[in-house]
């Protein structure tokens, strides 16, 4: 079997042009049928030992293709692709080959599948978002499907994500994914780690790095400590951290490196944020039997390899042994200080993140459970400030008594778990708060949590950078 002709190219499917998609689908169909035929013919002939291995390999290859097709038949924003994929699957089945079946129950473990928008049932705005996301990534991931409850936010989220991970920037692409892996691993999010591992290999990263942080370049190793602190106790970040990460580089390259560091941060944030939300919605296992990526099956990765010091975790800010001065927003806030610094170090990102914060913070439909025309700003502010409070960030002009009045205990538990130890969220926690509220509202809350946490971490990191620079 010549590899060349059996190479399946999925990228044609991402095109917006239906004829291009059709051609691509036709090619896929041909390839798959050819493979199927081949397998069948091999099956009928008596098994020769020399063929045994290649047989297994090609069966494996076919299964991967079929899994991808299955994913497309459910998740592709283009109707023609969905239908055709299903058709191909059916015809393969008729040929006597077992086809994979979906394993999970929708994109989220917490939200029943029927509550979530089905692909194909979206409106024009959502469709555009889906198509964009699909064109850029070749997939519609679970998180997109959950976030589409709030398309306005999703748009901003995808844009930022795309800019950070795929667009031009000072860091090479595989560095970015590696940092993503590091950040996701801190919270033991295997899904996100695998996602980034695949992307990392796809952009040409060195597979050796994946054996552990010590095999990665020094520069990334230096980030390890920073990553750890940032993920769990950002208030401990000092300018020394920045210095350590920097002192290995030449002085003249300092500014450039700062910028990279900055970006690393952003990415960490971005992925942590993604992870947080990923976890809150807890839909870890992928939907299908096989990994849907067209690369080699990545063995279940020991997530802990990517970080050290596993015992390091979140500790209560207030109860923490050493005295850490309260972070006052009036002295260092995102709008005045953080934004300017980020934009200076990594142009345009400040704008994107700023937009995302604004959308998340100001998002409201003026509804609350079954009530309409409610001003939710007070509640949103309480949630936001509560999270910042957990990270030791204080607003002079906020009466923290409000939090106790507005947020009940189970909700607080949920918030704290999601924000500090997202790996421990359970469905019970998710169900026990705000019982009457809609799922979309709960997702909305989660978005708030993500963004608030991200801002908190950014504030600490940026303040350290500012101090380092002055």
């Amino acid at each position, binding site marked *: 079997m010549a590899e060349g002709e059996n190479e399946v190219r999925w990228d044609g499917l991402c095109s917006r042009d239906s004829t291009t998609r059709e051609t691509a689908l036709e090619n896929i169909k041909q390839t798959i049928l050819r493979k199927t035929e081949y397998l069948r013919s091999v099956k009928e002939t008596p098994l020769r030992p020399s063929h045994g291995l290649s047989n297994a390999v090609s069966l494996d290859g076919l299964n991967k293709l079929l899994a991808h097709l299955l994913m497309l038949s459910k998740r592709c924003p283009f109707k023609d692709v969905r239908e055709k994929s299903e058709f191909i699957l059916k015809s393969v089945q008729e040929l006597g080959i077992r086809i994979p079946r979906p394993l999970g129950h929708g994109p989220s473990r917490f939200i029943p599948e029927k509550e979530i928008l089905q692909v194909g049932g979206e409106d*024009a705005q959502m469709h555009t978002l889906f198509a964009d996301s699909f064109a850029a990534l070749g997939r519609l991931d679970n998180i997109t499907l959950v976030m589409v409850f709030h398309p306005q936010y999703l748009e901003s989220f995808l844009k930022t994500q795309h800019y950070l991970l795929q667009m031009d920037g000072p860091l090479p692409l595989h560095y970015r994914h590696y940092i993503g892996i590091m950040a996701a691993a801190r919270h033991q999010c295997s899904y996100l780690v695998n996602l980034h591992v695949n992307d990392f290999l796809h952009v040409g990263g060195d597979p050796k790095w994946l054996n552990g942080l010590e095999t990665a370049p020094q520069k990334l190793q230096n980030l390890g400590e920073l990553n750890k602190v940032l993920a769990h106790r950002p208030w401990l970040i000092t300018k020394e951290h920045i210095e350590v990460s920097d002192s290995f580089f030449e002085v003249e390259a300092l500014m450039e490196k700062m910028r990279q560091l900055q970006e690393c941060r952003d990415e960490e944030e971005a992925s942590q944020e993604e992870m947080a939300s990923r976890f809150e919605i807890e839909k870890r296992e992928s939907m299908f039997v096989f990994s849907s990526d067209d690369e080699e099956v990545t063995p279940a990765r020991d997530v802990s390899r990517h970080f050290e010091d596993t015992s390091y975790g979140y500790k209560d800010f207030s109860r923490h042994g050493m005295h850490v001065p309260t972070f006052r927003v*009036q*002295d260092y806030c995102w709008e*005045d200080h953080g934004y300017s610094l980020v934009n200076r170090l990594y142009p345009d990102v400040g704008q994107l993140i*700023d937009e995302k914060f604004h959308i998340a913070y100001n998002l409201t439909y003026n509804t609350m459970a079954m009530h309409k025309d409610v001003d939710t700003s007070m509640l949103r502010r309480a949630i936001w400030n509560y999270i910042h409070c957990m990270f030791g960030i204080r607003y002079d002009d906020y009466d923290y008594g409000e939090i106790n009045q507005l947020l009940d205990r189970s909700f607080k538990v949920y918030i704290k778990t999601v924000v500090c130890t997202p790996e421990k969220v359970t469905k019970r926690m998710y169900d026990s708060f705000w019982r009457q509220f809609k799922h979309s509202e709960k997702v909305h809350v989660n978005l708030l949590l993500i963004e608030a946490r991200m801002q908190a971490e950014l504030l600490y990191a940026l303040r350290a950078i500012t101090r380092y620079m002055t």
Partner: protein
Amino acid sequence: MEKMSRVTTALGGSALTGRTMHCHLDAPANAISVCRDAAQVVVAGRSIFKIYAIEDEQFVEKLNLRVGRKPSLNLSCADVVWHQMDENLLATAATNGVVVTWNLGRPSRNKQDQLFTEHKRTVNKVCFHPTEAHVLLSGSQDGFMKCFDLRRKDSVSTFSGQSESVRDVQFSIRDYFTFASTFENGNVQLWDIRRPDRCERMFTAHNGPVFCCDWHPEDRGWLATGGRDKMVKVWDMTTHRAKEVHCVQTIASVARVKWRPECRHHLATCSMMVDHNIYVWDVRRPFVPAAMFEEHRDVTTGIAWRHPHDPSFLLSGSKDSTLCQHLFRDASQPVERANPEGLCYGLFGDLAFAAKESLVATESGRKPYAGDRRHPIFFKRKLDPAEPFVGLASSALSVFEIEPGSGSMSWFVDTAERYALAGRPLAELCDHNAKVARELGRNQVAQTWTMLRIIYCSPGLASATSLNHSVGKGSSCGLPLMNSFNLKDMAPGLGSETRLDRSKGDTRSDTVLLDSSATLITNEDNEETEGSDVPADYLLGDVEGEEDELYLLDPEHAHPEDPEYMLPQEAFPLRHEIVDTPPGPEHLQDKADSPHVSGSEADVASLAPVDSSFSLLSVSHALHDTRLPPDFFSALVCDMLRFYAEQGDVQMAVSVLIVLGERVRKDIDEQTQEHWYTSYIDLLQRFCLWNVSNQVVKLSTSRAISCLNQASTTLHVNCSHCKRPMSSRGWVCDRCHRCASMCAVCHHVVKGLFVWCQGCSHGGHLQHIMKWLEGSSHCPAGCGHLCEYS
């Protein structure tokens, strides 16, 4: 002098005195304000609230207003203002949203007067009315502005900014009822104090938050605003629409802006992040600050001119916990350090150079450009005689033209267009490219191509059998190749000529391919040790001796396999194989010149090429067995590529790289390749050779390069009916549900390449239009336009 007297009169006969000085505060300052007598300054911050007296030599702490045991958030000040009518009246804005007034006339230690707790969030700014004793205005994060009458317990009126945070409020100095407010969303509003229901006027001033504003002290209509977008803008508010009259671009977000007294166009700014300096700008010259104060070590948070009629004293407070008085005469003037010199390339390679006249004059040899002698725009402004930068205002401009033709790069363009880089067998590509180069008179390049062909597709390598079994055939194959080698005939005066010239004993080195320093020596050595039969000598001598790299590596290769005797013999047939039957006498000499073998062998050797004798046959097996893989030359070829690249002929380097592909790529590090590719692509694009450059991008194997033509491939189109951008598909508008691009010929929707006439904007499928234009030059849509396509 005239100004000085004015100041003196304004100050009532007692001019301010003092020097540049600073004093340490206990805590970072957030804001400062000056008393109207210009002798006291109040500093406020999160944990500081003090009044200092400004004396000639130093600041003296006069009063600490933070009294009481327990620190209250009411004392954590975001802003402070001193009343300009009443020396005893101060107001502070607290970070917890409280507005506090202070009366210094109170006999007790606690001077706190009134407390207004109406704002829900941090109050960013407080401002007293310039002439009214009891009116105070505040602007808060909660989106409200409140006006207080100090004789009452609560606010008189509330102005709503529609939940957009207020960053600054300022009473107009001239218009009694007017005040301006700036917002986090970039808007500036103008309010009438009597009408709290709606603002008089609103406009967007900045992209992002507007942190500050300041009314011009003399000009009624001018308002300066500073924002996070690093701009300071001056607006003329007298016209119907606010008009931007000046714009200063700074290097960091602008936290404060203050007009300089007595200087109509000057304003001082300080930044919120990163940049610690205070700048004084002349708004008419927005690129270089007129003055710069560099005393602070952390961001400056508050600035104030000490006296409303004295332009030379500036006070500032900073996060570094210092309070400074800056004297204008001590300021550093960046313009003095700036080089008033400019350099620019023209479209056709001309070079213009402008410099200070004094500099140019000293260099007598060059005469300034006669035809167009002018001052660069930078110094062209008419300057106020009082301004400090008059002296620099003259400069000379020189223009250097290139001689017509000398810089012509037509060969480059020709070569780029005619080279074949892919799609044919290597041998053909090389031949073709050699031909192109030769026709353009670039013989060295042509020869290189020929050599490449020999190296990588010589018959011996391509089909070993033919050589192996019949030398005669092998030689006939070699014949046409060798012809192109006779450089003597076709390229006199070329650098590589020297390689063949050894017969004359001329050991001029050619550094193109061979290491000349080594060869020079060994050549002489060989001469001396002629007949000595030293294998090592042979090796080196051969290196020197031949024009082709083949020989350089060949012995090395043969050596380990057959170190003793086969060595020379092996080399000869090889030489023969390529050199074939050379007609020129220099070739024979060439042979004789190879001085390395003992007599008998030399005889055989020199005979061998002429008549393919049995000696040759006898070694042909050995030759075949140790067939030279082209790998052996890759080092040399790489050197050659580097040489070309260094010579500036990156075209050659890249072309060879592409043509040879895998054969050499692995031997040159990625970065160098990338560098060559980018340089070449850049050059091609400068010559508008888009197709060639795209071909090069496509053929490149370097990831960084090949992604070049995958970036920004999106083409944004607007609907031809509703003029809105079409987001999802390129041919159907989502909004008006019409097909936007119809082919004028076939009346179908164009989904692929759409070509249209820029005159009448009709068009259609590329193919259809091309076909149509063969028959008619009028527009296919029937509009009567004579369409033009380029």
